[in-house]
């Protein structure tokens, strides 16, 4: 059923809320910067010259529009719905992350900031940030968990090659959550001359809205391409969710098309029945992390608990507040997929379609693999292939080595 809030979807509200979620739970030092950022963002969003410039770089620099590819052999093998892949892996730097970093770098330039900082988990957002910093002549510092730096050494080298400084986050679990803490702490000290490019639809308002806006190009293109190819909207859209930026990007333009089912795939790690997963919506409770109220993995007293996923990009104990809202109002549903299922899908797509997906995106594929037999043949499913798997090849090879020992 179509509810009132979905017919005219107007979130975030003026307080930066998506229902009960979102908000700005940050030190006072950052408040004026966030208020100013919101004003600048809304002004530039409405500015045709900004949109033109953004569109130019998305086309000429990143290679958009990305194809909506009919995965014929995967479709045949699964014997279910017609499967389309939104090829975000074909973007410059290999993932959807650059949609947002181009947008935010232009935002930084137009607001007179000479310096950007970013957090990164697997390194994809860090690389996308370092890339635009190089292109636009901005100074760039990337915060990355010490543990992730070890796991993703190649991306660390890549960022340094692009001229960025990579700072290890040595606190807590030494992963994405802690890198984000360090980036926020650094921003508190340098708020006057530095723009913080958050990499997902997380963080205090207006970040979830800004990142949604710069990622919605994924869904806008998908809608146009689907109508051109199939003369109808898809029946379902499936995307992986860590913080949730590729999912929000492809979901958002369909939010009022309630006949389109939206499915976010959370990392179930070793299983949602274990303690090693990153399924914030399926296993978390409302709480505050990184400036927003959202669904959060935490102990009974509100200490944030470590997440686990085979994929560093999904290894995050929270989720974007708007996803928490979608789950609460039932506009999207969020389903778990384990490490093992994702790994199977990683191989399956590689072998059937000649496309090596990122381990993150493999979660979305795995869900469709599992469910295909239950979906009618005359339906069309779009999977957001958020990134390519080159970055994961070494990790998978190492794991296979372990398996064969």
């Amino acid at each position: 059923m179509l509810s009132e809030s979905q017919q005219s979807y107007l979130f975030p509200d003026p307080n930066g809320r998506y229902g009960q979620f979102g908000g700005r739970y940050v030190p006072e030092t950052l408040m004026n910067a966030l208020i100013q950022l919101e004003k600048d963002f809304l002004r530039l969003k409405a500015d045709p010259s900004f949109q033109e410039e953004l569109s130019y770089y998305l086309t000429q620099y990143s290679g958009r529009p990305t194809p909506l590819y009919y995965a014929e052999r995967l479709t045949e093998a699964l014997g279910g719905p017609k499967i389309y892949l939104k090829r975000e892996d074909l973007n410059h730097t290999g993932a959807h992350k650059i949609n947002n970093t181009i947008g935010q770098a232009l935002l930084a330039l137009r607001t007179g900031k000479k310096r950007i900082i970013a957090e990164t988990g697997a390194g994809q957002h860090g690389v996308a940030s370092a890339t635009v910093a190089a292109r636009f002549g901005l100074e760039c510092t990337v915060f990355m968990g010490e543990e992730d730096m070890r796991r993703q050494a190649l991306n660390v080298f890549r960022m340094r090659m692009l001229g960025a400084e990579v700072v290890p986050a040595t606190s807590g679990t030494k992963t994405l959550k802690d890198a984000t803490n360090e980036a926020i702490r650094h921003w508190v000290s340098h708020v006057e001359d530095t723009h913080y490019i958050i990499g997902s639809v997380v963080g205090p308002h207006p970040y979830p809205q800004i990142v949604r806006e710069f990622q919605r190009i994924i869904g806008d293109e998908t809608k146009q391409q689907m109508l051109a190819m199939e003369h109808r909207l898809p029946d379902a859209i499936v995307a992986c969710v860590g913080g949730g930026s590729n999912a929000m990007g492809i979901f958002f333009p369909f939010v009022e098309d309630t006949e389109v089912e939206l499915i976010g795939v959370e990392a179930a790690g070793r299983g949602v029945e274990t303690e090693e997963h990153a399924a914030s919506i399926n296993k978390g409770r409302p709480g505050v992390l990184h400036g927003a109220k959202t669904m959060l993995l935490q102990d009974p007293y509100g200490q944030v608990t470590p997440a686990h996923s085979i994929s560093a990009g999904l290894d995050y104990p929270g989720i974007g507040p708007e996803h928490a809202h979608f789950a609460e109002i039932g506009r999207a549903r969020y389903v778990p997929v384990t490490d093992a299922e994702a790994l199977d899908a990683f191989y399956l797509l590689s072998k059937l379609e000649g496309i090596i997906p990122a381990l993150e995106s493999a979660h979305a594929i795995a869900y469709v693999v599992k469910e295909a037999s239950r979906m009618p043949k005359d339906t069309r499913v779009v999977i957001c292939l958020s990134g390519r798997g080159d970055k994961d090849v070494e990790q998978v090879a190492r794991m296979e080595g372990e398996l064969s020992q």
Partner: protein
Amino acid sequence: MNRIDQTFAGLNGEAALIPFVVAGDPDYGRSLDAIVAILEAGADMVEIGFPYSDPLADGPVIQAAALRSLQQGHQLPDCFRLIRDVRSKTEKPLIAFTYVNPVMQYGTERFFRDLAASGGDGVIIPDVPIEEAPELAQMASQYDISFIPLVAPTSGEERVRAISAQAHGFVYCVSSLGVTGERSSVASGVKSLVETVKRYTDLPACVGFGVSTPEHAAEIAAFADGVIVGSAYVRRIEQAQSEGDGSVAESVAEFTRQLKNACQRIRL
């Protein structure tokens, strides 16, 4: 008038000394002894940091202290127990310093009820700006807990006015940009921040973040109503813990006497 208001009213012109320590660091017993020693050595009130896994406003020294406390399993009920144990030995104000998520998970009303019942007098929640504060502040007031807000060098006059107007207890003036941690000098802008606060409220204005030495305290005491010292205490506790049982309390007591002396000297 709760204990915080009474304490400021009784200061006779000198600046209040407000040390900060983390509950349960280095362990429950020694943190209790440290707080009692700090108050006996002349501190006017104390901020008790509730350990949290993701303390966004804190630098490495306080992060490490929170981690030490959490690793021993200290959670909200232990913090309330600590406040109750301190309260049995002193009538000085006790202020909880906590991030918002533990409050939310414990239940807002239950939090303030238990804080008040334990003998707490105030609360500082560094990740709750005024926009997110109304429900918390209202509940605090219901239990006679002073909801102490922060103002920052970046707040600007308009926000300072709005924040000061809603404050209880005192206004916490953040001395400089950045997280908690020791600094080599007192930021030059903090005096004018204090003056701005004082234009909009009669409540005391206290300065914290980066206050590390008796010299800093003396400098701040010349224009502010209170001096908040955190990381410098926590670092002393960290150093002293390896030197035997008695030394934690002795070390913080000695530091307190130096600081309190600095707070008094200028205003006399």
